[in-house]
C-alpha cells in the first residue's frame, strides 16, 4: 500500500506542477487587473479603477459587450437552426445531391479563413451587409457549419428510428416528429454545437477585424485590442488586463457549466478520425 502511494507521488507532482503553470496566467491576469500599476487608473492599492477606464473607453464597454452579445446570440441561433434542419435531412432523408452537399459543407474546413474573408468583404458590400453585425454573424455561422452539421447528423443517427416512426404513425408530420420527438433526443448534440458556436463567435478576432470598420460596431475582442494600440503612445496595461477578464469570464463560466456535455460530445465520437 505504501509503495503504491509512493509510486503515485511523482505522478501527482508532475500533474500539479503543470496545473500551476496552466492556471498561473489566468490567476495573474485577474489579480493584475485590480492591483496597483504605474501608468494605469489603479495607481495605488486595490480597486476597480481599470474597469472604470474600460467602461468609458471610446464607445463604452456596454456598447462593445452588447455588440459581442448580439453577434454571439445571432451566430448561435443561426448555427443551431441550420444544423438542426440540415442534420435531420442528412441523417433521415434521401434526396438528390445529398452526398455532394454534405461534402461541400465539410469542405469549408479545408479552406483557409483568410482566403474566404477577402471575397466575403466584397460580397457583403454588394449585399449591403458590410460593416453590419448581421453580416458578421452570417459569416461566423458559415464557418461553424462543418462541425455543427457533422455533430447533428451523428446525433440524429443515434436516435432509434422506431421513435420517429411511431410519431409518424400517430399522425405527426415530419416537422411534428422533429419538434416533439427528435428535439429532446438530440439535446446533448445541440448543447455541444451551441457552446462551440458561442465560444467561436464571442472570441473571434480576424472576421470582425476585416468585416467591421465602424468602431461603434466593434465586438469586444477588437475593441480591447484597439484599446492597446490607440492609447496615444502610453500603453495602458491595466485597462487591457481588465478587458481580458471581461472577455474570458463568460467563456470560462459557460465551459465549466457545460463541460460534461462538451466532453461527452467529444467522447461520443465527434472526432473519430
Amino acid at each position, binding site marked *: 500500500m505504501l509503495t503504491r502511494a509512493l509510486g503515485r507521488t511523482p*505522478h*501527482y507532482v*508532475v*500533474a500539479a506542477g*503543470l*496545473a500551476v503553470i*496552466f492556471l498561473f*496566467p*489566468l490567476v495573474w491576469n485577474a489579480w*493584475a487587473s485590480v492591483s496597483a500599476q504605474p501608468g494605469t487608473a489603479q495607481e495605488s492599492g486595490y480597486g476597480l479603477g481599470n474597469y472604470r477606464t474600460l467602461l468609458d473607453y471610446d464607445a463604452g464597454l456596454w456598447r462593445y459587450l452588447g455588440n459581442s452579445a448580439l453577434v454571439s446570440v445571432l451566430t448561435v441561433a443561426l448555427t443551431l437552426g*441550420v444544423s438542426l*434542419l*440540415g442534420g*435531420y*435531412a442528412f441523417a*433521415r*432523408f*434521401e434526396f438528390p445531391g445529398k452526398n455532394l*452537399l454534405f*461534402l*461541400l459543407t*465539410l469542405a469549408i474546413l479545408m*479552406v*483557409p479563413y*483568410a*482566403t*474566404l474573408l*477577402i471575397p*466575403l*468583404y466584397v*460580397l457583403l458590400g454588394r449585399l449591403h451587409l458590410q460593416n453590419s453585425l448581421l453580416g458578421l454573424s*452570417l459569416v461566423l455561422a458559415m464557418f461553424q*457549419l462543418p462541425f455543427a452539421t457533422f455533430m447533428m447528423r*451523428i446525433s440524429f*443517427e*443515434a436516435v432509434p*428510428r422506431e421513435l420517429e416512426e411511431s410519431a409518424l404513425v400517430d399522425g405527426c408530420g*415530419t416537422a411534428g416528429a422533429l419538434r416533439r420527438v427528435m428535439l429532446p433526443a438530440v439535446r446533448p448534440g445541440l448543447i455541444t454545437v451551441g457552446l462551440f458556436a458561442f*465560444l467561436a463567435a464571442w*472570441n473571434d478576432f*480576424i472576421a470582425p*477585424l*476585416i468585416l467591421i470598420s465602424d468602431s461603434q460596431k466593434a465586438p469586444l*475582442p477588437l475593441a480591447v*485590442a484597439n484599446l*492597446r494600440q490607440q492609447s496615444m503612445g502610453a500603453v495602458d*496595461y491595466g485597462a487591457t*488586463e481588465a478587458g*481580458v477578464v471581461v*472577455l474570458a469570464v463568460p*467563456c*470560462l463560466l459557460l*465551459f465549466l457549466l457545460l*463541460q460534461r456535455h462538451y*466532453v461527452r460530445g*467529444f*467522447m461520443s465520437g465527434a*472526432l*473519430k*478520425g
Partner: protein
Amino acid sequence: MHVKAPDRATAEHPPPTRPADRSPRNAAPRRHSRRIQGLGYAAPTAVFVTVFFLLPLLLVGQMSLDDWPLLAGDQGVNAPENYTDVMDSPLFWPAVRFTLLYTAVVTVVLLGLALLLALLVQESRPGAGFFRTVYFLPGAVGLASASLLFWGLYSPTTGPLSRILEHLGLVDDPVSFLGTPTSALLSTVFLVVWKFAGFYMLILLVGLQRIPHEVYEAARMDGASRGQIFRSITLPLLRPSLALSLLLCVTGSLLAFDQFFVLTKGGPDNSTVTVVQLIYREAFQRLNLGTAAALSILVLGALLLLNALQFRGLRRSDES
C-alpha cells in the same frame, strides 16, 4: 474528413421497413414526398454553402486575376500581374519560411506536451477530472484574448515573468521577451501551447480510451516493460488520433494570425510576419485586394496539396 463514422452507423442499422412503405399503392408518392421534405430541411444549409462559401470561392479566383484596389473596385483583368507581384514582394519568402518554421516548432512542442497531459490524466485515479478541467481551461479563452493576456505577462516593466526570472537570479536586467526574433518566436509558441494543449489532450484522450484494456494486460503478462508497452502498443494504436491532431495542428499553425497580430505585430523587424498577416497587409494596409486574393489562392493551393499528401500517406499506412 470524418465521414466514416456515420456511414458505419447506417450500415449497422439497415433502414427498417417504414410503416409508410408497407402498402405498395402508397409507396411511390410517399417516397417522393420524403425526397421533397429532405430537400426542404437541407435548403438552409444549401443556401449558406452556396452564398457564403461557393460564391466567395469563385469570386476570390476572379479577384486574383483582376486589378482590384480596395476602394475603387474591379478595374478589369490584369492577369497574371497579381501573382508575379506576390512573388516579387520582399516579404513573401521570409513570411513563407517563418510560417513553416513556426508550424514545425509548434507542432512538435504542442503535440508532445498534449500526449504527456493525456497520459497523465487518462486513468481514473482521484483528481484526474480536476486536472483535465485545469489543462483544458485556457482553451475556453479566445486566442486574441489570450494573446493580450500574454502581452501583459511578457511586459518587461510590469509583467511578472521578467521579475520572477530576476528574482531567481537567472537574469540581471528586465527581459524583453518580444524583443529579438528568436525570443519573440519562442514566446509566441509558449502562448499557443498554453492555449491549445488541453484541446489536443482531449482528442488524444479519446484515442487512448479506445485502446482495449485486454491488450495492455496481455502485454504485461508477457513481461513487457512500461517503455516497451508505450512504444509498441500505445503509440501505434493511438495513430488515428495522432494523425487527426497532426492535421489540425499543422493546418491551424500555417494559418496563424491573431497571436502575431496582437502579440508581436509582426516584429521585431518583420521577423514574425506570417503568410496570413501578409494577406491582411496587402488587402487592408497596401489596399490591394487583387494581390491579396492571388496570395490567398496560393495558400489555398498549398494547403489542398498538403492535405491530399497527408491523406494519401495515411491511407497507405492504413493498408500496410
